[in-house]
């Protein structure tokens, strides 16, 4: 599964994207796996309220299923316009 990061999430984790092999069934489970990896992940995912997630380029919630999903993205609230 391709996992991508933007803005300060990208900066904290230290890379813009990576391929991750996971059995996580939901975004929340994937977040738990990432948090357990290393301090920089734990830091990036320390406050889910400050994060947004997109699954296959659609905004969704942390309880979204990862069934058949190819790309998950984590980022702060958007500031367009």
């Amino acid at each position, binding site marked *: 599964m391709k996992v991508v990061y933007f803005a300060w999430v990208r900066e904290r984790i230290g890379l813009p994207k990576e391929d991750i092999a996971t059995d996580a069934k939901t975004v929340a489970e994937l977040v738990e796996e990432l948090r357990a990896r290393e301090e920089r992940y734990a830091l990036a995912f320390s406050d889910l309220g400050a994060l947004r997630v997109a699954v296959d380029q*659609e905004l969704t919630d942390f309880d979204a299923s990862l069934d058949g999903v190819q790309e998950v993205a984590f980022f*702060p*609230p*958007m*500031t*367009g316009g």
Partner: protein
Amino acid sequence: MRISVQAESFDLGEEVAAFSKEYQDVGAVVTFTGIVRNNDSGTLKEMLIEHYPGMTEKALTEIAERARDRWNLSDALVIHRHGALVPGEMIMMVATSARHRVAAFEAAEYLMDYLKSRAPFWKQEITNDGAEWVAAKDADEDALKRW
């Protein structure tokens, strides 16, 4: 309907002229243009705009289609830049055309409200003190409740 996510600058006058060229049952055209405004102390050197290629275009298209359908627009245009911009540069624009003024105004405000909080852009301000990510405003999230 045209959606463009681009690094290049755009010419507002030319865009407006092109958008307003074909009239069919149109009585009202509204445009909004967003400009890089300096901070209060005037120390902004650059604004860096990051985005999510692929998702950005999809999100903008969805937002514009919803506005078009809801207000029965004749046409809609969204241009949004990414990359490094300096104060005074245009960041983005939207344009809407409709039979009546209220529809054109409301649709343009709807586009802007959704662009602010639902299109995957992130802004970073560069000053001599370093780089700082622009935080999303509660007021911008609240603005969506109107719709």
